[in-house]
């Protein structure tokens, strides 16, 4: 019987859908082991977030506060989270495999002497876990052999927790050895957008090298993106070439998305790109090269010049409304 502690990530004093996915996965793990699921928010001024978290069917919420937690840094957060897990008797720590989750959890695992499984996509009834390897081309079923476990979950692979109940909120002053801290937050250059978040949108329209430059992303692709109320993504090639910022990259080492509809425009379909979108429900490819590998995974493939097809599609979509 193991109790689970979910790290509830937040940004700008808001949770994203992926936070509730972590809670959902945490609850599933707790149920499986016959233990309880707790959740924690770390930072400063956590009262409102803690109260919101308490409505998602967990046994208890910890609002962990300390000046050193005001901005996320791996070392301070690892001390606080591992310390909390130990103090509260939680042998399993869970978070989504977001940038923060990936950065933080391995440190927590070492502090707890816990085996770590990253980017889990399935929790089996026998306690084994499934995770993608080789860019999702080989799915590994693994077991964590240590009594304590640290698990990061792929946000697109689990349902978010449903609301339910009203858990108690406990304020915890984190015990942090400040003399041991060697990292300092300097600044965050955040990409601002009014569009839905790439990892949460129902429809994603991604552009690749075929768009030729950043301006075409704006003048050709974005009108279609906005006509569909979609999020915009990009291939590695487009980001490397400076067409769009890095946080739009979909792929093995970029964002993993699984929307209802993924439209790949001018994207050849390299293995690494497929790794980030092949769990999408419906995949559409628009590319002038009929040999492009993307057509091997698309449900609907249109061999066409994107500079004609994309504006046409925008018109056709608007006629539907």
């Amino acid at each position, binding site marked *: 019987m193991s109790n689970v502690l979910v790290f509830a990530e937040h940004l700008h004093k808001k949770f994203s859908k992926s936070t509730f996915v972590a809670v959902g996965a945490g609850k599933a793990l707790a149920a499986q082991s016959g233990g309880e699921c707790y959740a924690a928010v770390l930072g400063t001024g956590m009262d409102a977030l803690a109260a919101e978290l308490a409505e998602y069917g967990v046994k208890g919420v910890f609002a962990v506060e300390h000046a050193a937690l005001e901005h996320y840094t791996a070392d301070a957060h690892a001390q606080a989270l591992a310390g909390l897990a130990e103090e509260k008797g939680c042998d399993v720590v869970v978070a989504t495999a977001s940038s923060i989750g990936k950065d933080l959890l391995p440190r927590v695992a070492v502090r707890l002497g816990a085996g770590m499984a990253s980017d889990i996509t399935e929790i089996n009834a026998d306690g084994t876990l499934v995770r993608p390897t080789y860019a999702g081309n080989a799915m590994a079923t693994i077991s964590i052999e240590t009594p304590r476990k640290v698990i990061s979950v792929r946000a697109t692979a689990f349902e978010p927790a449903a609301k339910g109940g009203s858990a108690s909120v406990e304020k915890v002053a984190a015990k942090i050895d400040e003399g041991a801290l060697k990292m300092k937050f300097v600044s965050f250059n955040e990409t601002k957008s009014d569009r839905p978040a790439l990892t949460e949108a129902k429809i994603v329209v991604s552009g690749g090298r075929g768009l030729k430059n950043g301006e075409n992303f704006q003048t050709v692709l974005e009108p279609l993106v906005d006509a569909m109320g979609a999020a915009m993504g990009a291939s590695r090639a487009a980001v490397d070439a400076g067409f769009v910022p*890095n946080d739009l990259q979909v792929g093995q080492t970029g964002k993993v998305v699984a929307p209802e509809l993924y439209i790949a425009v001018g994207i050849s379909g390299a293995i690494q790109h497929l790794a980030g979108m092949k769990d999408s429900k419906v995949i559409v490819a628009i590319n002038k090269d009929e040999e492009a590998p993307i057509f091997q995974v698309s449900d609907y493939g249109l061999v066409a010049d994107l500079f004609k097809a994309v504006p046409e599609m925008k018109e056709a979509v608007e006629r539907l409304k």
Partner: protein
Amino acid sequence: MKILVAAKRVPDPNATIKVRPDGTGIVTDNLKYVVNPFCEIAIEEALRIKEKLGGAEVVLVSIGAQVSQEQLRTGLAMGADRAILVLADGDVEPIVVARVLEKLVAQESPDLVLMGKQAIDDDSNVVGQMLAEMLGWAQATFASEIKFADDKSSAVVTREVDGGLEDIQVSLPAIITADLRLNEPRYASLPGIMKARKKELKEIPLADLGIDQAVQIKVQKIAPPPARQAGKRVETVQELVDLLHTEAKVI
């Protein structure tokens, strides 16, 4: 300055990976092996730091079978000074890799440890972080730019994170893991390849390091991903939009 760079031998990222029917692993026949792309970027960064500083020692480390020598020679050919190969058979799980590196850090006392953010075979993305915690050091993962302070006691690292780019300051020594856009690695030159043959490549059996090898993660089986149904080609945009609306029902 001494920079320790960890690099892994992995299958060519562009190879088609097939799972063995018995579920014990992937088919390795005819697979070409390379330096893990992210580790190659780490090696390149170390070399650029060395060139900028006008003198530093770049020491490569790899953990694997003897055949990993090939990848270390590639790194030496790029310009690294010497290499260490910790001989280990089969897959070595991340915690063991981190413990090996911890031992080597104690032996070598580097000012900086660089490695790729993840290996493209295992895709774990944990070793750098685990090592940093073991050492009580700062970490800067997913690095896209590294700027040292004049006195080299710290560095500001730009990291590629979910919402954009984050800058953090880390005291040195630190662990930095390389992301795609940190740099574009050089090709080894022919003179470089010739010189590499004479550079030191020391082999250390894993057992000699006296580390805890208790298994934390057991791989039960490997399976192919769920197959997608074959799709269809459409001739016109209108046909596509109609199908998305009436057949797929996603718009």
